[in-house]
């Protein structure tokens, strides 16, 4: 794009500095703990799910002899790399139940954590571009309503009212034939969410141990007795795996097979722009999702890179297609600069649903397979997994997502039903 000279630059419409309403960068919010030699509960993975589980173990169950082990820095994996979209408009009962549980916790989370997470319920549009899309979308709206999830079907003129920058003209390759709308959906500030959970867990006396990679497990029969780490061996009463894309590395050490494949998932941001995009827009067929972050960047994501990868980077042609899709849907983006791209490692499962629950070891709990959508579940899975750990029984909300559903055949097939297809 051409650079505007000062004489032709437009006067800003608003004098408000983008990001002026954001809180200042906080001082240290938690202790970076030295690991002790033994804990009742060891959570492997200091991302959103691990930190949330720690928080709810303390808050709901009074369990505070807990360590969260993080191989890198706190919340520096997928928690730092996602596109922060929060919604619960999934098709199947099992999915909408856990995601709606999470959404209700999001609605009270700022108060619970006593920390600003900038949860903004600006709504999500899931666009329909073909007659089949329309039928599937209307079906999902009806299913959502039966499950008590707010959902509406919008015609193209109503889509335009919710998000005026979407191209709703009829002569584009994938015309917008309508959209589902969940007004309670939104975005939150992912770093603040992690910091809020970390702060609360730390205040409860839970040890957050960074730079502590698990290198093996000590076991005795069908119990794991401890974890070997780069910072020594730590005895554990119960172990919970919350390692997302790196789960297979851990389960390989345990000799457990889990049906997940780790893929790079890329996202990107534009430079800071004036507010132009008031909501969240997702398109399954054109294959992009977009929101505008609090500071003003356009945040976009798309599908995973096709091959397995642990490299936290992806191929450039995937970004190129994603940008093409974004410009098709939002012609106004054509002159925006791309600022930054990155990737996380997402653990995709055969039915696009998470895998949570028992393992062959009686005191090891599995939490993985959230694939491309784990952020939105953070408080929901945190509370359900904490309950599971505390009671020794899978919480009813996670029971349908057990590992043995791949043997029984009771899959929860969310492929393409509610998200960008992967």
């Amino acid at each position, binding site marked *: 794009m051409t650079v505007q000279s000062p004489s032709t630059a437009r006067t800003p419409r608003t004098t408000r500095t983008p990001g002026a309403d954001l809180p200042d960068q906080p001082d240290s919010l938690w202790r970076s703990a030295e690991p002790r030699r033994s804990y009742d509960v060891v959570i492997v993975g200091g991302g959103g799910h691990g930190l949330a589980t720690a928080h709810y173990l303390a808050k709901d169950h009074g369990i505070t002899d807990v360590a969260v082990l993080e191989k890198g820095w706190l919340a520096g994996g997928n928690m730092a790399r996602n596109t922060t979209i929060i919604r619960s408009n999934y098709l199947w009962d099992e999915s909408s139940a856990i995601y709606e549980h999470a959404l209700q916790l999001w609605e009270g989370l700022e108060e619970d954590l006593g920390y600003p997470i900038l949860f903004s319920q600006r709504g999500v549009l899931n666009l329909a571009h073909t007659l089949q899309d329309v039928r599937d979308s209307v079906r999902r709206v009806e299913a959502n309503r039966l499950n008590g999830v707010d959902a509406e079907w919008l015609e193209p003129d109503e889509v335009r009212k919710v998000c005026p920058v979407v191209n709703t003209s009829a002569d584009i390759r994938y015309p917008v034939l309508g959209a589902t709308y969940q007004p309670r959906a939104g975005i939150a500030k992912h770093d603040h969410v992690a910091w809020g959970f970390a702060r609360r867990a730390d205040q409860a006396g839970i040890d957050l141990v960074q730079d502590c990679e698990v290198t093996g497990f000590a076991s005795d029969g069908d119990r794991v007795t401890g974890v070997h780490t780069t910072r020594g061996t730590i005895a554990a009463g119960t172990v919970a795996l919350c390692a997302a894309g*790196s789960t*297979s*590395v851990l389960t*390989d050490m345990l000799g457990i*097979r*889990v*049906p*997940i*494949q*780790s893929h790079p998932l890329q996202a990107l941001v534009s430079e800071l722009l004036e507010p132009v995009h008031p909501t969240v827009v997702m398109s399954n067929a054109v294959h992009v999702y977009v929101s505008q972050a609090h500071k003003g960047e356009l945040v976009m994501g798309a599908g995973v890179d*096709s*091959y*397995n*990868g*642990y*490299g936290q980077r992806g*191929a*450039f*042609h995937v970004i190129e297609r994603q940008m093409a899709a974004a410009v098709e849907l939002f012609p106004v983006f054509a002159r925006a600069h791309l600022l930054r791209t990155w990737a996380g490692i997402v653990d995709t499962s*055969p039915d696009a649903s998470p895998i949570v629950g028992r393992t062959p070891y009686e005191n090891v709990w599995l939490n993985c397979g959230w694939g491309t959508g784990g952020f939105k579940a953070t408080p929901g899975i945190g509370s359900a997994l904490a309950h599971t750990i505390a009671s020794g029984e899978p919480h009813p909300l996670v029971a349908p997502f057990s590992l043995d559903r*791949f*043997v*029984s*055949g009771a899959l929860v097939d969310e492929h393409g039903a509610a998200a960008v297809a992967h």
Partner: protein
Amino acid sequence: MQLIACPWCGPREEVEFSYGGQAHVPYPDSPAELSDEEWAHYVFFRDNPRGRFAERWNHNAGCRRWFNAIRDTSTYRFESVYRLDDPKPVTP
């Protein structure tokens, strides 16, 4: 863009290829005798290593033939490519 060396065509751009997942997963010898658990492992469970991985690729915008490759899933570097009827290379 990464170049991938098709064993038949030579090095071509990554966008010409599609991914086929783990290689050397044989169809069960006696399908009728498999338990549900064995079927589940055949259908749904694949290795997911960090590091060397033997996997299938298809040169679908070129010769449209399948081949196998050893690729490192951390660096994405292809270490070798070989034909489907070749044995899996012995890696150090």
